[in-house]
């Protein structure tokens, strides 16, 4: 099969944001996303996922570069100031160009 370049935007942030991020992704038109539970350490200290929402989530969105940038900008504006959050982009190859 032929492959097509897309961008993978990965977001690691406080678990408490899950619902809000999903709403944002829907609004911004993300074609889909995947979430898994995580824990970690960063500028805002240890987040050990020992209880309740004291953990992180790891959110992945495969989409075109432009949308990835839009989403990242949105996150920056709305969450960076007050929440533990890290974003990064990478390049991936997908098989179905129309899906992402």
């Amino acid at each position, binding site marked *: 099969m032929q492959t097509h370049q897309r961008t993978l935007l990965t977001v690691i942030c*406080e678990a408490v944001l899950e619902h809000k991020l999903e709403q944002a992704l829907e609004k911004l038109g993300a074609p889909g996303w995947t979430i898994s539970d995580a824990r970690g350490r960063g500028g805002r200290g240890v987040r*050990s996922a020992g*209880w309740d929402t004291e953990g992180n989530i790891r959110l992945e969105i495969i989409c075109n570069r432009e949308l990835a940038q839009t989403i990242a900008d949105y996150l920056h504006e709305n969450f960076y100031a*007050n929440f533990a959050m890290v974003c990064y982009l990478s390049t991936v190859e997908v098989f179905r160009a129309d899906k992402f």
Partner: protein
Amino acid sequence: MGLSDPVVLFFLLGFAASLMKSELKLPASLYETLSILLLLAIGLKGGVELAKQASWALLGQSLAVLAMGVILPILAFPLLRVFGFARADAASLVAHYGSVSVGTFAVAVAFLAAQGVSFEEYLPLFVVVLEVPAILVGIVLAKGISRDTDWKALGHELFLGKSIVLLIGGLLIGWIAGPTGVKPLEPLFFTLFKPLLGLFLLEMGLIAASQLGSLKRYGVPLVVFATVMPLVSSVVGALLGLALNMSVGGVAMLATLAASASYIAVPAAMRMAVPEANPSLSLTASLGITFPFNIVIGIPLYLQLAQWLAANL
């Protein structure tokens, strides 16, 4: 005395294990399950009582208790500001202390039972009543009554959070099913209440001790607040109990409710509504200091206070 109750010992075990950096860890889903069971058990108990004796008098008492939940944080806020806490942080802190801790309430229930002191059975109702108002007060203190606030999302957060749904749900189930209907549920929610509370406190001990790491960062003012505030609040709660003509046990319980600080519902709500408040500050205070303080020292003290008041007033 309080120290030798096995549920308190479970707490101390967790606390000590965490301080000694033991590898002991309870599965997160066990903690969730235990807190669900405790919330339902407390709701059910309150609901069964409502089924027996719902009355206008009880409604009046509830309103008085609610008023306490509004007034305490309003009074504490300016003090915290004077001590140099940022506006959002001060507002978040008082919201935690105006609300209640279900775990502390459960320990008080177990403690009074062990002491053979009875109390008004409808007290779980006041847990429900006190859960929400302080959060609202905290938000208004942080932001003013601005148009910016998304009140719809906020109402959702307040009344549909996990703990309030389970408390009110348990209350309604207990109320509708009544004493006989609830009977078959007792083996889980009543007979196992104390050992499950013990397990819950084991985990709380682990968590509480892990909050102490951030203590250094916030220093003396926070420690002072987290021990003085419950003491002051307990007196307010006890006096309110007296004014409402409650028994010695009831006065002690209301003092405990007033003195306790939330660490489930309020942190979640404040994180979304006032994200600029430092969540670790409030948790360190309520979980790392006030919760252990109340469990080990506070509750026996509040009972003595209630007994003293009953004897001297």
